[in-house]
């Protein structure tokens, strides 16, 4: 289990990062180390820059200034496929072409591992099978994506990112629009990936209590700036949450899980 005090040398590090779309600055002067082998949750109100940070982490958005470092090497020096073998991103609300099966989708995750004209290899099959098993999608592998429930579909997309076999997995709002049972499914999957798969997972979530319950590390953003970060129980403070979310919550310390929750 990940322990907060002995985080190893960080894999993904953001240094004095400023991100902008055209002239609108979204994130300013961000310094952040993503703890390895842990589940990090980015929290903040809409437009606070969380998704933008994820995009910069996979090079979908070039920083206006500052750098993204992966193992102390600037991300811009990585080839696109090399980068995609290290970091996977599942964007918010991805859309698949019509008529695709679960396996068709998952197979796309092998793209960065396959030389341009190479044939499908047994290694590719292995990676897909593993992704199917981890996400418990084996029985659904031939089903068309349209016929799946929201939770199953989200698991299929995560399986695609898993077939990419990266050590770092970024998820942009993986639980939004899912009902509670499906949200719990996705959170359990993430916990499994981190605890057993030794993956580094970073997710943007909207549910503060979900983050408090499952995350190892929480990062709070407000208007493009980092406000607070640390172990859940250290950042779940009334004052911090009031500042970040513009709400005035009660903080409840649950003895059973030793987690702090908010009551709005």
């Amino acid at each position: 289990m990940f322990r907060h005090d002995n985080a190893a040398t960080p894999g993904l590090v953001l240094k004095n990062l400023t991100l902008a779309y055209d002239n609108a600055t979204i994130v300013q002067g961000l310094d952040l180390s993503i703890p390895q082998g842990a589940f990090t949750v980015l929290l903040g109100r809409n437009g606070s820059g969380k998704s933008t940070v994820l995009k910069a982490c996979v090079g979908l958005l070039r920083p206006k200034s500052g750098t993204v470092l992966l193992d102390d090497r600037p991300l811009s020096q990585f080839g696109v496929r090399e980068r995609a073998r290290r970091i996977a991103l599942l964007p918010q609300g991805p859309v698949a072409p019509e008529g695709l099966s679960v396996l068709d989708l998952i197979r796309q995750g092998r793209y960065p591992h396959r030389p341009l004209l190479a044939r499908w290899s047994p290694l590719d099959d292995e990676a897909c099978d593993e992704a199917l098993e981890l996400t418990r999608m084996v029985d659904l592998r031939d089903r068309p994506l349209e016929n799946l429930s929201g939770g199953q579909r989200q698991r299929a997309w995560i399986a695609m990112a898993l077939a990419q076999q990266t050590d770092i997995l970024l998820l942009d709002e993986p639980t939004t629009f899912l009902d509670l049972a499906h949200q719990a499914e996705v959170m359990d999957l993430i916990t499994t990936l981190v605890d057993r798969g030794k993956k580094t997972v970073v997710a943007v979530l909207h549910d503060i209590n979900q983050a408090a319950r499952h995350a190892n590390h929480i990062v709070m953003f407000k208007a493009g700036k980092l406000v607070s970060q640390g172990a859940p129980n250290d950042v779940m403070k009334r004052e911090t949450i009031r500042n970040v979310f513009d709400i005035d919550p009660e903080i409840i310390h649950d003895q059973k899980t030793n987690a702090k929750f908010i009551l709005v």
Partner: protein
Amino acid sequence: MMPRYRAISLAALLVPALLLASLMLGDRHVDLAALIKGEATAEVRTIVMDLRLPRALMALLAGMALGIAGTIAQAVMRNPLAEPGILGINAGAAFAGSIVIVGFTGLSVTVLPWAGFVGATTMAAAVFLLSWRKGTSSARIVLIGIGLGAFASAGTSVMIAFADIADVQRLMIWLAGSIYDANWDKICLLLAWLIVPITLVCLFYRQIDLIRFGDDVAASLGQRVNLVRAGMILLCTAISGATVTVAGLIGFVGLIAPHLARRMVGPGHARLLPASALVGGLLLMAADLVGRTIIAPVQLPAGIVTALIGAPFLAYLLWGRRHVPA
């Protein structure tokens, strides 16, 4: 799964059947058995070998090319209603062709394909450059393609309004899209133009598979999205530009063929590209056969027949998708 492959196998069997029908049917019914036995007259042999066979093969080839071009366009634009025409390719080729026919009456007809090709390429390049803003987006390409296409069509209309009546007549026939004057030289020309781009498309089918997922997903998986999109649009232009200039403007085949093929073999491009080619070839061969026999001796250009079938199909497509949010 099985019915899918049954449908495509049936389609494959239809090709030789339709080819034979194209050789036999027409103003003059040809007895193929006699032809094979060598008992046919020289006249019959000319009809079959120099008129009907090249014409049927040209329809097959052009239809295949349009099917492939349409498949690329729909995947790259991520739009089920996309077809090569949406890139302004057809309009560009038509405009360039009309300039040649009307403006330079002295020039030989062999210049026509080249002019059309230049028009198509210029158009696709203009669409691509104008929609570039730190990368391209499918929506911008579609909008600018339609805009520039309308502009080029207007140019062609101006030509038609002011040109000499004989030139206009030649122009109209060419614009309507017909394969009536197919010959072996033209087939070789088209084949030579098509072979490289179609080979490249088939080699890189995986890129088309991935780019359909949207820029963010494709790019995060390590695809150079803008490069792939530019390359695929270029190949699509080369394929449909060459086809338009040799076989004339033939609408709707590029739109319908991929949809029919998708129902037969599913969405993966390893199978979809050849299936679309097959369906496209069949459609155009059938359209040409219908066009020259249904009200014989009057010949309907194949482009008009495809439009007559294609327009209702388009309506059906929209009707079937009316519950899908745009």
